[in-house]
């Protein structure tokens, strides 16, 4: 592991590359932005005061010239991820083929005249992209082409995420919070985490199942006829794939059937057959349903889920409420240690923790076993 001094020099050294907008007078220019004082503490508290002059947070989006990023980066620049008082520097990485498009994205971000956007670093170079970042949104991945086997897909992505995991270890702030979106998300997160093992705690890594959770919440709300904001603690377990487990065993509906009362979802829905045979498959297959309707995959709702996942991670979940995040298993609920597995979690002080002691029905247990098996087989299929 590099010494702290070397890491500081690496991080502040990056500030001389072009990218942060403007010259000497911009408040966020390289000349006036103090180098991060201590990389371990470089994960700055999100500023919530309208009066402070906070340092910007550096957020990397990979696959930055793509569809999801096009919705995502504007949501971030407008303050949806970290709130209205926290400026952001956006690092944008894509492959050389997409350089022109990436330039166009930067032009549009500038044309947004966002008060919270302190600068952009658009690059096709991994070192530049990862230097000094505190949040890493790994949207880019190798897409499945026609005729491509699943094992080929796993292999192509293993290379990408191994390289990027190493880059995180070498260049990012030690407290960097990583969210993997590009599929296969859980296994890609596993690979990145492994590559960074010597330098970064495994608790820094996560994969996105928030989209699945939002979809599940919306379907329950529609079924029962309540506002979505009243449906709480729906959980997604396992792999972000067709074996994911949408689980309402511990979910509740607030102010139902009247204000002040809380009713378990199981009671409110009162139809196990619908839950097991309709609800679960609908959530699992929603991605395909959106593609069928739009003729394009779900970019904006994915972007929205990314914003929600990271916002809750850094700003905290409300008391008593859980969200779904795929994180490195510590053995909770007998899920093998080390797998990147979606659990119900709570977030506080910038950390997530798996909610313990939840009821697991035999029906759900079978599904947990199946998704665990699938994740295990994805890891086994990785090139050694």
């Amino acid at each position: 592991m590099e010494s702290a001094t070397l890491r500081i020099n690496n991080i502040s050294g990056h500030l001389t590359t072009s990218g942060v907008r403007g010259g000497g007078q911009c408040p966020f220019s390289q000349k006036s932005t103090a180098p991060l004082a201590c990389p371990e503490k470089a994960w700055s508290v999100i500023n919530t005061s309208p009066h402070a002059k906070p340092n910007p947070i550096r957020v990397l989006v990979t696959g930055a010239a793509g569809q999801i990023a096009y919705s995502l980066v504007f949501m971030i620049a407008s303050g949806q991820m970290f709130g209205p008082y926290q400026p952001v520097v956006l690092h944008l990485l894509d492959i050389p083929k997409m350089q022109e498009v990436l330039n166009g994205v930067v032009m549009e971000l500038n044309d947004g005249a966002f008060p919270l956007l302190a600068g952009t670093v658009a690059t096709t170079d991994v070192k530049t992209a990862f230097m000094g970042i505190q949040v890493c949104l790994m949207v880019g991945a190798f897409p499945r082409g026609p005729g491509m086997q699943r094992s080929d897909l796993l292999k192509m992505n293993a290379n990408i995420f191994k390289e990027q995991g190493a880059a995180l270890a070498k260049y990012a702030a030690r407290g960097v919070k990583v969210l993997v979106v590009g599929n296969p998300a859980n296994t890609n997160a596993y690979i990145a985490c492994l590559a960074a093992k010597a330098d970064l705690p495994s608790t820094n890594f996560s994969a996105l199942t928030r989209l699945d959770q939002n979809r599940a919440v919306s379907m329950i709300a529609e079924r029962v006829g309540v506002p979505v904001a009243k449906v709480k603690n729906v959980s997604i377990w396992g792999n972000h794939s067709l074996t994911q487990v949408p689980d309402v065993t511990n979910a509740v509906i607030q102010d139902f059937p009247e204000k002040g009362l809380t009713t378990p979802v199981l009671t409110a829905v009162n139809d196990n057959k619908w839950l097991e045979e309709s609800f679960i498959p609908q959530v699992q297959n929603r991605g395909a349903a959106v593609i069928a309707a739009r003729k394009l995959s779900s970019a904006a709702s994915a972007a929205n889920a990314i914003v929600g996942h990271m916002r809750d991670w850094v700003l905290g979940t409300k008391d008593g409420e859980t969200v779904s995040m795929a994180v490195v298993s510590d053995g909770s609920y007998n899920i093998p240690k080390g797998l990147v597995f979606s659990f119900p979690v709570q977030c506080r002080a910038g950390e997530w923790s798996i909610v313990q002691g939840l009821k697991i029905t035999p029906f759900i247990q079978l599904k947990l076993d199946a998704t665990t098996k699938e994740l295990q087989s994805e890891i086994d299929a990785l090139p050694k």
Partner: protein
Amino acid sequence: MFKSASSLLVKSGVRNYSTTKAPLRVAITGASGQIGYQLLFRIASGEMLGKDQPIILQCLELPQALNALKGVSMELDDCAFPLLKGIVQTDDPNRAFAGADYALLVGAKPRSKGMERGQLLEANAQIFSAQGKALNNNANRDTLRVLVVGNPANTNALIAARNAPNIDPKRFTAMTRLDHNRGLAQLADKTGCGVTDIQKFCIWGNHSATQYPDITHTTIKGSPIKNYVDDAVWVKDNFIPTVQQRGAAIINARGASSAASAASAAIDHMRDWTFGTNGQWQSMGVYSDGSYGADKGLYFSFPVICKNGNYEIVQGLQLDAFSKDRFDVTRKELLSEMDAIKHLL
């Protein structure tokens, strides 16, 4: 320390979704298009009208686009937005504008190959006269704010307003906020300052290649821009054309037109109109009362200040010779556009 961060955000309204406000109805045309896709999700998340304001989205599309609209609606559901209380999907303007408090008229007929400008104006005149009538008959006339984005925006706003005799023409506006934001970005880049340091910048005239981005009153951190950049040649040959032609530059780079930044500008426009600009100038294409010699009744972009839910044209500004010249060019273009569709009014 982090716990207090959460509670501070609840107080500031960022994390507080419990609200007793009645929903506002926001109508969007061309809702399944590129700009619509960028717009709908950011509106539904509370960016335009506030984190405590529930909304109902009323989406209008052509019949052939209703399937695509269904897909967008599915994605909106998949966001589980606490503030989104309903989605209307329709090809009937009367349904789309029923009770509308806000109308963003994004959809318009694009220019096809070989199409003459006059034909484009006429084709859009059909669309916007129908929408003007539908707004007149169905929208909430006491609260309505209309923003026309679809081009030619200024003239389309004029057509819609003329077909809505029971609605105050001041409730119709055309978008030049995108040009305004683009101008700020160029100035920030040139001077090395943040966009929030720049004041008293404005766009005059038509949202077209004749628009006049005017920095003759602009200040940076309170002092005249001449102290940062004093280069008339740069202004004339670089800054102004860059802002005017930015749309084409984006198309060249992205291979697609500027949907996200246009959506962003639309949100900024409606949000500032509603909540005020805190004494600062913004640019809006508005019903001209004859100020500065812009013919009465034209929809012309002026510097405005928004306050108490209204906008007011900034008065008493001196226009130098160069500015008067540019002003006149864009004014004449708007007159000729109006002339081309006069027979339909």
